[in-house]
């Protein structure tokens, strides 16, 4: 019987043409075995260490991100304002004798609260 080393030296003597004859079944089997044999390495703080050593993101990209967030909030607010039935609410308020000043005040407060919430949510 050939020893381990003898087998190896025989294989080393193979011609390239012989070696090129691939065996897809063997390739699949070998890939599976190699992958099956591989353990998953737990993060164990590796990711945190990498992230701690990263340089801060450039101001330019931060500003661009902030501008995009503000633009999204303004667009959303505009759509809400466009769809909101101001006329009906006003008529209803007049009909129910609610003072115009308190209505405008309440509207402004509600808009401010919505925009602040939107901006905070976008920044987070």
């Amino acid at each position, binding site marked *: 019987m050939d020893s*381990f080393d003898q*087998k*190896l030296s*025989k*294989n*080393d003597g*193979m011609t*390239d043409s*012989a*070696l*090129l004859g*691939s*065996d897809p079944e*063997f*390739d699949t*089997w*070998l*890939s599976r*075995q*190699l*992958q*099956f*044999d*591989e*353990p*998953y*390495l*737990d*993060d164990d703080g*590796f*990711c945190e*260490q*990498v*992230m701690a*050593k*990263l*340089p801060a*993101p*450039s101001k330019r*990209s*931060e500003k*661009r*991100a902030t501008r*995009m967030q503000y633009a999204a909030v303004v667009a959303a607010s505009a759509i809400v304002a466009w769809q909101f039935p101001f006329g009906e609410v006003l008529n209803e308020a007049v009909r129910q004798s609610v003072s115009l000043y308190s209505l405008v005040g309440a509207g402004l407060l509600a808009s401010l609260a919505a925009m602040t919430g939107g901006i905070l949510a976008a920044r987070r």
Partner: protein
Amino acid sequence: MDLNDEELIRRIVEDGDQRAYAQLVRRYQSQLRFSLRQLCDGDQGLADDMAQEAFIKAYKALPAFRGDARFSTWLYRIAYNLVMSHKRKNAPEVNQELVDRAQAEESVEESQQLGMARDLHSAMEELSEAQRQAVHLCMQRGFSHEEAASIMKLPLGTVKSHVNRARAKLQSLLQAWREEVVSG
């Protein structure tokens, strides 16, 4: 939400979103660290340091990443360059104590594994360094020959030759196991 590499890279480069990069690190850390442990002859500490450096270097170079290759190929190329460069600079200063300890730990684990895994490991040890790396990249990581050649900085024909020769050796050494599996 699990975003693909391209979308994560876009967020990092355009929005400076570091959380997106954390996702990429988590996605590839295990595979890269495992690959580098093999490349560093079992020195786990060195492999992890190299992997960490590779991720940091990749992050800094990300704006220049043109997307010609997959992110994983690009990352592996950076990591392999770092390890090879480290090996060239520190060839005589291998921390033998660390290596011995890592190998001893591996031996304990190996003794608990099935025979096939042990024999596969032994067979892989019989390959040359370049053959082992080529098989690892192409058959374990699923990189194409072209991608492996780009990572290893070798001509395509050389990588194909390494893979073919390694495959032939492994086929011969593991034939008994394969027949056992086929015959049930």
